[in-house]
């Protein structure tokens, strides 16, 4: 989109939304300290920064969720202040917030049209019309889902696409997306980009937040970088290289960033000779066909496959969160009871789940409490919890994962989205398991912390843990894993070792896999 005509057009395009000198603090935490932001018609504007830099807060100020402590907003040239999200929406700003902001108990169609349902006579909601509209909209946008399905029964990626569909269908002048791709598969990302291109053609301004650098360069025209609540850079995208962007975000010299490369995984690991965990013939009607896998101590096993291939279900089954019809799971040669989370934990298998927000964060407890929760038995003697040992564990992880919080006692729901992810990650890591299952461990985490998570995974493998890694970021999967089991339609179809562990290797295994059956 950054073709040469665009470049010459950009500076003259109308400014639709402008924020100047925005300040916002929460009980002593300065989330924004005087930020300026200018959005022009038809541009795709990247808003980037580390976890906790203030991106989501800025978006919430722009859209009436929060009122700024200081500063001004101008929309279409006139000063405005949006008292509620509804006011911003009526003015033509529609937003996909970072958390999936839909109602899980309602259908897809309802979620698309809540608040603007088509009505027939007597002011009654016209369900048939609504379903038809929803079908047309989803088809037009290339999203494959039945609008009658209950939203909560769908995968996170599809839910996110529904949220995007709702935002773009509102016929807005500004569409804001806060990490829309955090739970999307590559194919869905393509669909999303196609949508964004169409918005661009219609001269709609788009604000785009993401921690995935390659996306920013693919789709964005302009970029604004925040660091610690301050504006550190704003300008056209083409003026920056990827490394420059990363170094501006992190506030570290270019040379240092260059040295670190794309992922922070080390090389292969010393692995033990006998399997630590072995699963054979895991199956569940309609979910898993036949999955076999094993992990040795010190090994990182990757699970490859497309959306719906059964990766998350496989790791859930290993910890007893997905019931199985058949299959044997053994740790150190001892059989673990199928479908029992308690016996999986006792055997030392721990899962960091994909949907960390829904599956485990306890919003009103502090960062410390959330981290030590699962590790309490290990940190206590005769039922008495040692506070000193707790503090030590918490301090280690907060530093290692760079969790940005005012103190360990801050409530976890006051943290930025990415920092909440890190807290959950810390909770499971603190359990010091034998086998660690990581489902999308770096989702929603900024580049700096991503590297930390990756090197932490490496360290853990070095210490002799068996690790199973699921990641839709192929590069991360390939660089992190020593061996990859490829899943297709709920069955394991290939095992890649040594030199086969490559992006191409995984792709071709997915393409060929199961064809000969």
């Amino acid at each position, binding site marked *: 989109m950054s073709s040469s005509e665009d470049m010459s057009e950009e500076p003259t395009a109308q400014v639709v939304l402008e924020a100047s000198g925005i300040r916002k603090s929460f009980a002593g935490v300065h989330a924004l300290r005087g930020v300026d932001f200018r959005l022009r018609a038809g541009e795709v504007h990247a808003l980037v920064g580390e976890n906790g830099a203030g991106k989501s807060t800025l978006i919430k100020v722009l859209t009436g*969720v929060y009122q700024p402590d200081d500063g001004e907003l101008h929309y279409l040239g006139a000063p405005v202040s949006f008292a*509620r*999200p*509804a006011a*911003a*929406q*009526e003015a033509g700003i529609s*937003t996909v*917030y970072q*958390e999936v*902001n*839909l*109602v*899980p*108990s*309602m259908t897809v169609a*309802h979620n698309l049209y*809540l*608040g603007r*349902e088509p*009505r027939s006579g007597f*002011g*009654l*909601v016209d*369900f048939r019309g609504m379903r038809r509209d929803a079908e047309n909209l989803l088809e037009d946008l290339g999203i494959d889902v039945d609008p009658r399905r209950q939203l909560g*029964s769908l995968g996170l990626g599809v839910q996110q696409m529904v949220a995007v569909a*709702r935002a773009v269908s509102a016929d807005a002048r500004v569409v804001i997306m806060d990490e829309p791709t955090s739970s999307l598969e590559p194919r869905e990302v393509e669909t999303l980009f196609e949508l964004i291109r169409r918005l661009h053609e219609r001269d709609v301004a788009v604000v785009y937040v993401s921690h995935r650098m390659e996306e920013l360069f693919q789709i964005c025209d302009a970029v604004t970088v925040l660091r610690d609540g301050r504006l550190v850079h704003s300008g056209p995208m083409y003026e920056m290289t990827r490394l420059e962007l990363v170094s501006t975000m992190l506030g570290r010299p270019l040379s240092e960033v260059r040295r670190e490369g794309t992922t922070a995984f080390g090389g292969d690991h010393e692995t033990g000779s006998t399997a630590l965990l072995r699963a054979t013939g895991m199956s569940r*009607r*309609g*979910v898993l066909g036949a999955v076999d896998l094993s992990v040795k101590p010190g090994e990182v096993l990757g699970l490859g496959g497309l959306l719906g291939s059964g990766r998350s279900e496989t790791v859930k089954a290993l910890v007893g969160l997905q019931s199985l019809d058949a299959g044997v799971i053994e740790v150190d040669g001892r059989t673990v009871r199928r479908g029992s989370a308690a016996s999986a934990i006792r055997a030392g298998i721990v899962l960091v789940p994909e949907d960390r927000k829904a599956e485990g964060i306890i919003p009103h407890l502090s960062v410390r409490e959330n981290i030590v929760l699962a590790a309490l038995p290990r940190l206590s003697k005769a039922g008495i919890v040692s506070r000193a040992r707790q503090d030590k564990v918490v301090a280690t992880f907060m530093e290692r994962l760079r969790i940005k919080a005012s103190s360990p006692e801050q409530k976890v729901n006051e943290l930025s989205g990415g920092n909440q992810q890190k807290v959950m990650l810390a909770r499971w890591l603190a359990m010091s398991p034998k086998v660690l299952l990581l489902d999308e461990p770096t989702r929603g985490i900024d580049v700096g912390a991503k590297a930390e998570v990756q090197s932490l995974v490496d360290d853990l493998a070095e210490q002799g843990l068996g690790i199973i890694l699921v990641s839709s970021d192929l590069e991360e999967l390939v660089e992190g894993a020593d061996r990859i089991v490829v899943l297709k*339609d*709920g069955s394991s179809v290939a095992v890649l070792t040594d030199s086969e562990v490559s992006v191409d290797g995984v792709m071709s295994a997915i393409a060929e896999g199961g064809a000969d059956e």
Partner: protein
Amino acid sequence: MSTSQQTRSGALAGLVQRHGALGVLVLLLVVGGLAFDTFLTAYNLGNLAVQASFLAVIALGMTMVIVSGGIDLSVGSVYALSGVLAAYSARWGPIAALLVPLAVAAAIGLVQGLLVGRAKLAPFIVTLGGLLFARGLLQFLTAEGSETYLVPRESAFLQLGQGSVLGVGVPVLIVVLLYAVGGIVLQRTRFGMRLFAIGGGEDAANLMGLPVTSTKVGVYVLSATLAGLAGTMNAAQLGSGVTVIGVGLELNAIAAVVIGGTLLAGGMGSVSGTLAGVALLFVIQDLINQVGGFNSNLQAVVSGAVLITVVVLQTLLSRARR
């Protein structure tokens, strides 16, 4: 992958969850009809329906409140207060006897709604306050219950509770009408959609730009007004304002709503289920009477057991649907 199979069993579970109360009700009617000659008679059922109508009206409002993720504990007190106000106002004519209690009830609902919706206080606490307030006001107005107001003998107001059209009691007709309208409001209007959205995810509803505050205020006004109407109907039926009624009635209403398949956590439910739930409570009570010889407390025991069974079933079913 046989996802169709999964959705089919999920749909079945959903069906049972929504219409389970109706199923059990039909079963009990058949069993009761076979066992007792006096059970399935127009006279007995007509009587039962009139008795059940007051709770039914209250439970309708409660359904909407619970769907929105709230709770209204004040309805029993508002019901009793309204009855006394109706009996008192009947001296000024039937219109006053109807409007005075409704206006007072709506005002109580408005205050509760503002406290819940605008001041964002917990509905449990706010409506518990409403319960005490209304009951206290009632005690004050009747000088601790020592004063009883009678509806004038010839007042047309009495028809609201005692009249009948084509052999069907007026209270029953009112219930039928209200549930028809209530069903449309909940399932087919934007207001209803908002209730489901707020109950299913209040933050999301707010971020979607739905008018959360006014919807909440509206639903508490509605609930209190319906409780007021139920009290008014009751006064018309009894011909006087009775101060001791309605104690714990809010719990019966909640029980009926939950038995009817409405999720106590909000976001899911139906008024038809609630109607079946109310009917079920009264049919159980009547069947126990028919058997005879039991302590009347046994009714509460059985109702309680039914409630727990339903809640356990609901939980299991909603797990099966995942």
